[in-house]
């Protein structure tokens, strides 16, 4: 018995030693990157496998650390950085989420890759504004999401007698009235805080316009928040609430999309990830459903995306792995392969999108117009400012809060 155990342990020890030796050899040869991300749903994990494959193809070893939920994933990354055991790279949204980590001098730069590929000209300005801090590049962007598309059901529009896409906020309201009269849920809606926030951003961008959007969301200008123009935006946002169905509170976005897919609801305001639901249901853009980037030809196009950041390190092997990953992520073909599965757009404006669907091509054309893209609120606001704004918006949407009070509360939410 004892002898058997000893033999087993001996064999185990040999195997372990051998394994350690082998992995030591491997790490001496190939750059090894542990990557934390939250792409865990079906389409997302298929998309990130494309990146992993490309990284392996470039000679690297990809160690996947997928953590469900963005909040959870980012918390793990931050905790590991503080704890002195950072991953090689980690996913963040293209936002202020990692600005504190930069300020603490805990992130490495990707300046070499950025200068070589001339990211200044290659990436949309709102993205550059987030990842370039004090002249240094701190993240490698992989995709761009546009958050405020209008998705509508063609059969529902036909039944309500709507001939063309609405060209202004007033026309949108008129169409919603027609849908209501036809017995269709006018606005497919999920009453969750982030969806309230997203809908508000759409109204602010389309009704308020570029200048008001920037002075409220980027400059946090108290006078702009108290202006009559901003009050009109809040009133229009609240008016949309009269077009949702009673079961909307707490509903998930994809359940709301399903209402549009089945023709039970007319319009949904949602990010480009909703397209995946239409595709999965076998629907074709232009025939079964329509996608609109905004109400007017010059309406701001609100974007955000995902980036990889690279925690600072002195270790030469890790630096090599980080550099290889930044180069891989920046490649056009990798971004296209990733985004075809993810439903978003490549971060590189020079990517050839002719193989993507019509909605994505429409989005890319607008993205290349320097006057159209703006960041979503998270691009300009810190997480706590953005959260405070969302708290007011969701309270305003759900209660009888007078518009003056909402204005005052937003002013104090954005004062700090």
């Amino acid at each position, binding site marked *: 018995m004892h002898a058997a155990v000893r033999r087993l342990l001996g064999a185990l020890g040999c195997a372990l030693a051998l394994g350690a030796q082998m992995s030591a050899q491997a790490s001496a040869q190939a750059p090894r990157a542990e990557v934390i991300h939250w792409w865990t749903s079906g389409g997302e994990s298929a998309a990130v496998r494309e990146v992993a494959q490309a990284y392996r193809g470039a000679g690297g070893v990809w160690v996947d650390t997928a953590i469900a939920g963005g*909040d959870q994933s980012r*918390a793990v990354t*931050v905790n590991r950085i*503080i704890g002195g055991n950072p991953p090689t790279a980690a996913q963040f949204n293209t936002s202020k*989420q990692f600005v*504190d*980590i930069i300020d*603490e001098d805990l992130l490495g730069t990707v300046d070499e890759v950025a200068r070589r590929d001339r990211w200044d000209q290659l990436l949309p300005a709102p993205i550059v504004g987030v990842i370039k801090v004090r002249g240094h590049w701190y993240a490698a962007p992989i995709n761009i999401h546009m958050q405020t598309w209008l998705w509508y059901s063609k059969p529902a529009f036909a039944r309500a007698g709507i001939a063309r896409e609405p060209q202004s906020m007033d026309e949108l309201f008129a169409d919603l009235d027609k849908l209501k009269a036809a017995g269709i849920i006018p606005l497919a809606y999920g*009453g969750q*805080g982030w969806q309230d926030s997203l809908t508000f951003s759409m109204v602010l961008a389309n009704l308020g316009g570029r200048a008001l959007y920037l002075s409220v969301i980027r400059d946090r200008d108290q006078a702009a928040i108290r202006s009559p123009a901003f009050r009109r935006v809040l009133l229009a946002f609240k008016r949309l609430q009269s077009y949702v169905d009673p079961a909307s*509170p*707490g509903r998930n976005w994809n359940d709301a999309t399903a209402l549009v897919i089945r023709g039970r609801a007319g319009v949904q305001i949602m990010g480009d990830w909703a397209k995946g639901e239409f595709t999965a249901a076998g629907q074709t853009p232009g025939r079964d459903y329509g996608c609109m980037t905004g109400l007017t030809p010059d309406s701001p196009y609100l974007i955000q995306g995902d980036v990889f950041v690279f925690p600072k390190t002195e270790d030469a092997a890790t630096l090599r792995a980080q550099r290889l990953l930044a180069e891989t992520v920046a490649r056009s073909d990798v971004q296209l392969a990733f985004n075809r599965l993810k439903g978003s757009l490549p971060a590189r404006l020079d990517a050839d999108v002719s193989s993507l669907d019509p909605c994505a091509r429409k989005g890319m054309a607008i993205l290349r117009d320097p006057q159209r893209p703006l960041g979503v609120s998270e691009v300009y606001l*810190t*997480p*706590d400012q*953005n*959260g*405070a704004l969302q*708290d*007011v918006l*969701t*309270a305003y*949407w*759900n*209660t009888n809060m007078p518009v003056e009070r909402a204005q005052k*509360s937003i002013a*104090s*939410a954005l*004062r*700090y």
Partner: protein
Amino acid sequence: MPFARLRFLPRFFPRIPPRISPQMALLPMALVAIVGYLGAALWTLRISLTSSRTFPSGHFIGLAQYQRLFDNERWLLSLHNLAVYGLLFVAATLVLGCLLAVFIDQQVMGEGLLRTIFLYPYAMSFIATGVVWQWLLTPGDGIEAALRALGWNVHFDWIVSQDMAIHCVVIATVWQAAGLVMALVLAGLRGVDPEIWKAARLDGIPAWRVYLQIVLPMLWPSFATVLLLLATAVAKLFDAVVAMTQGGPGIASEVPAKFIMDHLFLRSNVGLASAGAVVLLLPVLALLAPYAYARSYAQRHREAA
């Protein structure tokens, strides 16, 4: 109360050597309390005076975080919700727990089984039972559907209502905590001298009056413990809200603990979260101080006697 005892340590130390060993045994616990609780509380207080965001920082900004906190609509609503919740929860749990204890005290059949059933909710995590409650309270499902199936045409939509959502949390948490109150009160009732009951019976006093005017007042130490437990449960209310309403609809059922957690982890503002935690600590201390004083007063009284 390790602190209360430690204060007497120097006095007892030379005179009664046999008392050393219990004090030694308490030392690790006292260290944990001092470092873990007191240390963490002071650290939180310090952070709340700084401009810390994602990371703790040493940049002091005075009471600015507190000023921001009390300019925040959601925080004020959270405090209001906590007050409403606290009053209703403590009152309902006490009444229900006492009634359960008194009923069980009547030598009912299957006492052990009933006791277990009533105490069982307390042993379960609210993250699980809260989801069941959410389902039970959803309009069109659960309770409403069951009542309609029985022929009553009731409308019960508290959980999606702005004004009533927090009351749903009260209902579910009372269900959970009433069994604990029952167990503690029942233990007290069983300790009451049977002679008192005999005397009351001889005098022909009805049972409910004996309970209300003689027995329950005798149990005040049990009630002090119960109140302390319930009060801390109120201050740390978090899991029930997360499981049942996520603070909604809108922000209608937000509570301070959730505000603090959100700002610690999701909204990367450790400073503001710490300020909230300090504010939340104050009512707990306000409740704890009289209790600790009463306890030490009673102890001194006993020692003097």
